[in-house]
């Protein structure tokens, strides 16, 4: 029972279509696990099930040995499952630091502190800002703390989202295509950032199309195709798996 996350026979049907069919795998604590597959293979559906955005039609999802499938998103976030989104979900009017602070839970001002403007409010808000800026520093965005998120480049917005996910102090971090829209320099920085999560005790599940990043940073890969897990193993082995090659080439033919 060393697995932080165990997915057991999980299915998700939309009407008659099986987006995921009987998928099982385990994510050991401290690992960086990649989930790859052609478009429409069920990667994002899987992320939605693990993060509570959606509930499975069948099967079990265990986090630290406890079944968590079907629990609401905010509860799972407080349990230690954080995620970023394929389509960026930041609040464009708020600054980068304010977006990150949305996910901070300690310290938090009470309703009385806020409405009565008690003296300790400025202390609490100051501490929250300090934490938010330090998380932005970690993702390489210290200079952008006070800029509205809507003004940032695509790659920077992705990094604000990662900083916001880190603000919940996750034990499991789900990254949904974090490299999309990033240039080569940003991708290298992202690679280093993800590799660094291991040392912080954060387990990472990475859904990504950028094969250099996936092959470089992951310990283990799971390959989905049309909702089924077709292969798994270390990156070097998966890369040469005939089923995987066929799935990708087949997808390109279609």
């Amino acid at each position, binding site marked *: 029972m060393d697995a932080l996350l165990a997915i057991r026979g999980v299915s998700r049907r939309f009407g008659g279509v099986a987006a995921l069919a009987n998928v099982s795998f385990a994510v050991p604590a401290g690992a960086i696990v990649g989930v790859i597959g052609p478009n429409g293979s069920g990667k994002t559906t899987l992320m939605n099930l693990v*993060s509570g*955005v959606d509930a499975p039609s069948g099967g079990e999802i265990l986090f630290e040995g406890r079944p968590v499938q079907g629990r*609401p*998103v*905010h509860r799972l*976030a*407080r349990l230690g499952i*954080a*995620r970023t*989104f394929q389509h960026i*979900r*930041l*609040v*464009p*009017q*708020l600054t980068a630091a*304010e*977006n990150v*602070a*949305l*996910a901070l*839970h300690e310290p*938090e*001002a009470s*309703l009385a502190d*806020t*409405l*009565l*403007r008690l003296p300790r*409010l400025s202390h609490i*808000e100051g501490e*929250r800002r300090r934490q938010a800026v330090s998380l932005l520093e970690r993702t390489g965005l210290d200079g952008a703390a006070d800029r509205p998120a809507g003004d940032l480049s695509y790659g920077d917005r992705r990094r604000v989202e990662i900083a*916001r*996910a880190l*603000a*919940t102090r996750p034990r499991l971090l789900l990254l949904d295509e974090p490299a999309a829209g990033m240039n080569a320099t940003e991708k290298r920085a992202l690679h280093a950032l993800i590799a660094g999560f291991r040392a912080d005790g954060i387990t990472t599940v990475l859904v990504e199309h950028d094969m250099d990043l996936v092959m470089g940073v992951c310990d283990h890969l799971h390959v989905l195709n049309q909702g089924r897990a077709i292969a798994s193993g270390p990156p070097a082995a998966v890369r040469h798996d005939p089923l995987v090659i066929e799935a990708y080439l087949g997808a390109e033919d279609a």
Partner: protein
Amino acid sequence: MSDLYAAYENVIDLCLLNAVLAFSCLLLLRVNLLSLATGGLMAIGAYLSIWLTMREGWPFGPALLAATGAGALAAAGLGTLVLRLRGDYFAMATLAFTEVVRILALNADPVTGGALGIFGIPKYTQTWQLLALLALAIYLVWALRRSSLGDRMRAIAEDELAVAAAGHDVARLQLGLFTASGAIAGLGGALAAHLNLFVAPSDFGFLRSMDAVIAPVLGGVWNLFGAVVGAAILTVLPEVLRFSAQLREILIGAVTLLAVLFLPTGIASLPRLLLRRGRLA
């Protein structure tokens, strides 16, 4: 100045009352909730306060408190039932609530006087009370902005899933705000009841609920004074246009439509927009 007040006291009181009610809807609009429950919640506060003061001999203060509590309680109950509905369905469910309360009021003759209404309600509501309440509402909205809670509300308006993924129970915050807005509506209903000599169930129907929602939209949901400006326009305009009933409805509709189309940030943001344009020119 005092002559002016004497001549327009009624309109001023109505402006203040409508501004307070507009704030109760503004709180909800800021977290993506379009509620048409205002009329029904007002009716509960109004009839409770009338009953307590006229039948039970309560002083006005405790009756106002009771109306506030009743509004909050009714909203908490209603919210628990209907907050799981999204968007249009939520709006429809709150409208149904207002209609149910109105029809109950129409048929509860002993308490409400039925369709004929209640005459001879003592006028207890004073302008300063309304003014103080409005000042409190403005202060609370001011205190919310530039706070973590205000940022969270802003984020919910933009993207509820992002806030949930940040570990916040969005539904719980919405229920809290719905309850607070119910308290304001209940209190507003009691103040409205004791502002005139007469109250009938039709005073608290669909139109009442619509006005309370349109005011902050017209004035600007994200502007501190949006609710006040919107309520003032919606209250004064019909008085100015009293000479023609048809023109009144048409013009109010046209003003709202123009504001939504060309000033989506609200009429209260006009000075700042003009100032910016002046600086650029």
